[in-house]
């Protein structure tokens, strides 16, 4: 009885809602739709809308999305041959998955005037083709953050600006002994970027490789070392997404994460934290830069305006506004103002130091994997879950996951990228 009575009301509400959303979408048709998977947190997205985009002069609807819906709509519009997305913002690796449906932006450099874009990034934007598939938009990286309480437990002789993974483990032991619980944290939750730690930091630091030496003896030693480090890691790490939260609550004293995911802690309590470069392993200090870009889909409803928007995003003023809003650094030569948020002031020099370290092993984001990026990431997170969390035999897991790695490379025919030595043909897994 009661259930049937509510039903007509529910249907009426649904119809009303549908009507309202139809009316809304017709109003949105005038705007340029900026489809992105960056600056997803609500506050960040709002800052992009309020502080970055108004200067363009025309209405832009900035819509950041979760990875799933983000990719689904891009693919659906490409398949349908028509769409409403004007420009796409994403990471270097994302563009590879839909490179065929992007407009060539080679002519956009004419629109940029005297703006100097980092040439290495422009080259990455070609995705290995002759066309400029995307224009570099902004860059970031990963750093370590420590609560100042942790500094007194730093092992004897360890320099926080030139730490090794062994020293990090020793530091963790000292912190566990002092505080009673493990105080190192990693973003190993469903929304965390843990797989990047293995690809861009741990593997290069131990093997100077990501693909070729995946199951080498060095890799085996690396996983055993990391298991020892994990003893000092807060077990709640497998639910952490953004390390700024456990850092602020004090659950974790020392953490590794993407700079944009640490800003909240650094801005709220700048005096409680120090930012320092990532540790080094036997083969050097592996680190991975993050590059986001903007592309225009072939189905963009208004190509001219979309190109104008891309050019606007490249202006030095816009790049500085983007830095303030998202904590992603400029990819063009831009004068940085002195009144930047504390978090940005603290992370900028550390990112610079990582690039300039004498033992630096720069690693690129995976290149040429196309849509198989997720499977490539899975190889690393599966190895981690099996070896470290489930305690399985290192050699056995590496051999088994090496087969999955081979399958990904065979599927995509991707040649090696840094830090692996260049290869003729698909990158070999030894």
């Amino acid at each position, binding site marked *: 009885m*009661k*259930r049937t009575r509510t039903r007509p009301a529910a249907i009426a509400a649904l119809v009303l809602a549908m009507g309202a959303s139809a009316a809304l979408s017709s109003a949105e048709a005038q705007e340029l739709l900026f489809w992105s998977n960056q600056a997803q947190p609500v506050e960040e997205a709002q800052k992009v809308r309020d502080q970055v985009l108004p200067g363009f002069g025309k209405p832009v609807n900035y819509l950041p999305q*979760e*990875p*799933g819906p983000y*990719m*689904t709509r891009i693919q659906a519009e490409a398949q349908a041959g028509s769409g409403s997305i004007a420009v796409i913002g994403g990471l270097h690796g994302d563009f590879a*998955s839909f490179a065929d449906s992007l407009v060539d932006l080679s002519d956009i450099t004419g629109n940029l005037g005297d703006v100097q874009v980092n040439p290495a990034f422009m080259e990455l934007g070609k995705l290995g083709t002759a066309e400029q598939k995307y224009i570099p938009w902004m860059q970031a990286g990963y750093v370590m953050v420590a609560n100042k309480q942790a500094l007194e437990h730093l092992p004897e002789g360890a320099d926080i600006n030139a730490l090794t993974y062994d020293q990090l483990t020793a530091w963790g032991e000292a912190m566990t002994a002092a505080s*009673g*619980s493990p105080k190192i944290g990693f973003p190993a*939750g*469903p929304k965390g970027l843990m797989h990047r730690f293995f690809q861009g930091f741990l593997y290069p630091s131990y093997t100077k490789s990501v693909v070729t030496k995946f199951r080498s003896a060095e890799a085996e030693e690396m996983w055993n070392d990391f298991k020892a480090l994990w003893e000092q890691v*807060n*077990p*709640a790490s*497998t*639910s952490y997404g953004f390390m700024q939260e456990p850092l602020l*609550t004090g*659950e974790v004293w020392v953490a590794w994460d993407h700079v944009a995911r640490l800003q909240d802690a650094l801005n709220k309590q700048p005096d409680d934290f120090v930012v320092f470069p990532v540790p080094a392993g036997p083969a050097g200090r592996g680190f991975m830069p993050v590059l986001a870009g903007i592309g225009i889909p072939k189905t963009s409803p208004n190509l001219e305006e979309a190109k104008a928007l891309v050019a606007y995003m490249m202006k030095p003023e816009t790049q500085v506004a983007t830095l303030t809003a998202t904590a992603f650094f400029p990819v063009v030569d831009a004068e940085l103002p002195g009144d930047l948020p504390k978090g940005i002031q603290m992370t900028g020099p550390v990112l610079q130091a990582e690039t300039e370290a004498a033992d630096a092993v720069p690693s690129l984001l995976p290149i040429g994997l196309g*849509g*198989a*990026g*997720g*499977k490539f*990431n*899975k190889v690393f*997170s*599966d190895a981690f*879950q*099996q070896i470290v*969390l489930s305690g399985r035999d290192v050699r056995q897991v590496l051999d*088994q996951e090496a087969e999955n790695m081979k399958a990904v490379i065979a599927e995509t025919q991707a040649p090696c990228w840094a830090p692996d030595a260049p290869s003729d043909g698909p990158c070999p897994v030894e």
Partner: protein
Amino acid sequence: MNDARFLPYLLLLPATVFLIAFFLVPFTQVAVEAFTTAEGFSLGNFQTIGRDWKFVPAIRNTLLLTALIVPIQLALSLFMATLVTRIGRGRDIVLYVFTIPLGISDLAAGLIWLALLDQSGFLNTVLFNLGLIDGPQNLLSYQNVPALFAAIVIAEVWRATAIMLVILVAGMSLIPREYYEAAEVFGAGGWKRFTRITLPLLRSSLQTALILRTILAFEVFAVVIVLAGTNLPILMGETFAWQFGLQDREGAAAYAMIILAISVAFTLVFLIGLRDKAEART
């Protein structure tokens, strides 16, 4: 005359079109995708997902969760339904309160329980303030899988028992009072009346409730993702991961087919096991 004959079909038309467009067509596409690889028809997609080390744990965890959750919910909803039908005044209010969790999305329900059980959650705060623990305890850790299971079972029981309750309350209110009065005359106690009158006459409602709840239990997703993250692979979670994380639609489709097959199998079990033999269908 003609009008009257076609009217029912005309009235069914919108729903039929809706079902075909938004259910049958996508369903067929998924089914075709699951059994297709580059070489045409094959079971290759099933082999691909079967080789993944998470495949067996996902099936095991999902079955185990269902086996834990559904019986608890069945017992609890029978108890609550009996309670509700006994109440005279205020019956509606009690029923509404019991069904509040139904109005909450499963993601929100997961978040509520996360806020309770989390390392910095309410439970930890209360235990700490009572002096029962020295510091925050991480209850939802990969090191303590039984606790993860327990948290999910509690959250699911809290969230979804009401759907069975509503069906059973409706079923119980259809049982004629006279049977109970007659039983009382012959001196049958409360338990006897429940097992001899309520349960047999509730058979078809129980069937509906069990089928619905079991199918939903195989689709459990958001609560597990929120409480256990990737520490506890389940079928729906893997489907999601293959579709969106790995961008492998065929693998996701194969997982969807496996969930479908298990659901169909259990529906058949309930249909046959709880078949109405004596009562004629009306």
